[in-house]
């Protein structure tokens, strides 16, 4: 199948490569053509041109505005893609923006799935991402063989936007857990206790989690180089809290975590790992 891929960053690049290795013909567009590198793909001049070639197009970019630009912009996918083709947006964006883009594409007979992922760069490389999809079930079934090249757990959450709601829930739990791990490490250190030992003990009990495992270990080693850049979690928390506001739902814990992330950004640690939430606690 001819497949398009837009957004060749830390996540997008290995994902595109998996699709190509599964025997599909890959077309790409990148804002900076240099980012294509040695990827075995046909480089297109605009998203619209890419859209003309492809039956399914994946997007993996940063923000709601980026997705809107690439899909609905003047030389966007919408200007090139044929009826009954499919856009699969794997970016993490606002649920209401995902719904709006799906509606606009729908007017042209183009299908859309919001299919944000969880699992990080390692999950993308290992093709073990969790994929949470919003959109029509039949469209998901059409592209499921492609998604299976990228991840193992593929869940149809509901209609358009539902995938993004699930992703917002994912980010909320994960970053709150990072904050909890940071606070535990801070308390241990402030009490004169070895953080590494505490983490090791906790890993065997009820507080065990992947976050404590991975992020806790980074905190113990004070290795704050990014796995996932904290600025992306900061962006996601903007989406979470805006969705809460739109729904009239109080999220007291998420609100506090959001402020710790604001403080992290103020320290210029946005390009470091979110384990830096430990360093925010150490400021006070």
């Amino acid at each position, binding site marked *: 199948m001819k497949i398009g891929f837009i957004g060749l960053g830390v996540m997008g690049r290995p994902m595109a490569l998996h699709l190509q290795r599964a025997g599909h013909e890959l077309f790409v567009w990148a804002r900076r053509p240099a980012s294509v590198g040695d990827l075995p793909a046909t480089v297109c001049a605009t998203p619209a041109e890419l859209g003309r070639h492809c039956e399914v197009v994946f997007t993996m970019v940063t923000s709601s505005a980026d997705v809107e630009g690439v899909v609905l912009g003047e030389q966007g996918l919408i200007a090139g893609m044929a009826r009954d083709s499919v856009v699969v947006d794997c970016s993490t964006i606002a649920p209401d923006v995902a719904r709006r883009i799906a509606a606009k594409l729908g007017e042209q007979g183009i299908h859309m799935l919001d299919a944000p992922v969880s699992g990080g760069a390692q999950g993308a490389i290992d093709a073990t991402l969790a994929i949470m999809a919003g959109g029509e079930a039949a469209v998901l079934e059409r592209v499921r063989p492609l998604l299976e090249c990228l991840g193992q757990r593929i869940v149809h959450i509901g209609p358009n936007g539902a995938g993004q709601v699930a992703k917002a829930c994912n980010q909320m739990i994960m970053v709150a857990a990072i904050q909890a791990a940071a606070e535990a490490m801070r308390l241990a250190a402030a009490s004169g206790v070895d953080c590494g030992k505490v983490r090791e003990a906790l890993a065997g009990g009820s507080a065990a989690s992947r976050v404590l495992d991975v992020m806790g270990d980074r905190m113990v080693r004070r290795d704050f180089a990014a796995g996932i850049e904290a600025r992306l979690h900061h962006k996601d928390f903007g989406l979470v*809290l805006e969705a809460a506001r739109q729904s*009239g739902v109080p999220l007291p814990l998420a*609100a506090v975590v*959001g402020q710790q992330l*604001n403080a992290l950004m*103020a320290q210029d640690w946005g390009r470091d790992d979110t384990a830096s939430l430990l360093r925010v606690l150490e400021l006070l």
Partner: protein
Amino acid sequence: MKIGFIGLGIMGRPMALNLIKGGHEVSVWARRAESMQPLVAAGARAALDPADAAKGNELVISMVADAPDVAEVMRGVARGAEPGLVAVDMSTIAPGAARRIGEELATAGIDFVDAPVSGGEVGAVAGTLSIMAGGSEAGFAKAGPAFACMGKNIIHVGASGAGQVAKAANQIMTGMGVLAVAEALAFAAKNGVDGGKVREALLGGFAYSRILENHGQRMLDRNFKPGFKSWMHEKDLNIVMQTAHELGLCLPGSAATAQMFNAMVGSGHGEEDSIAVLKLLEKLSGQSS
């Protein structure tokens, strides 16, 4: 002075009336034609649209709900503007949005002043609003005679957007202030102590505030009529939190308060006064009201 006034809601109508009383020649425009009637009866000219409200005037004032409304009416104003027009927005919107609107109007040669107010309907009727303005010296001076009809404490805070920054700071204080008074009174009640006596005692000390005095009394009276509606306070706190997010600014108290206001809107208290936050505290703490 010849003044156009756009937006005749709870706040806008008495403000426009005070301009007429102050001897200014006022044209008005509102989306709903019937809301122009009382002003026309008082001597205002009914304009056809925002462009018409600007036509022939030295000053145009808007008092509408939110940033998109301000942007829309100001686009109309720009079409009707004559050289030297100063446009003043007295709505509460995000500082960033105010700056963008100011820049857009500057390209059309219009001087823009953001001048949100504090003091509520009572202050609007009495002409005693606090007015916090952002923009050029010249624009602020031009609007001065109009401000004098509507308000008392009139401060030129700084450059474009600075008025909205002051207003957002005001909403941080009032949002947390209302929650603080509600928590103090809930604390007294759960301890079986008379909230009225606590309020009275506190009014003499460092915890004195106008919110403890006014809002505190209304909480004790269980009078939840607005006043200032919860959903509007929620909107304003959202401006605060969005701005904090963009700037990388840590505001833990405002964040917690904003969540309570989310819950107010979500649980059907949006049309009540902000002091209904007391009811949420009582529900969470199992206190019967």
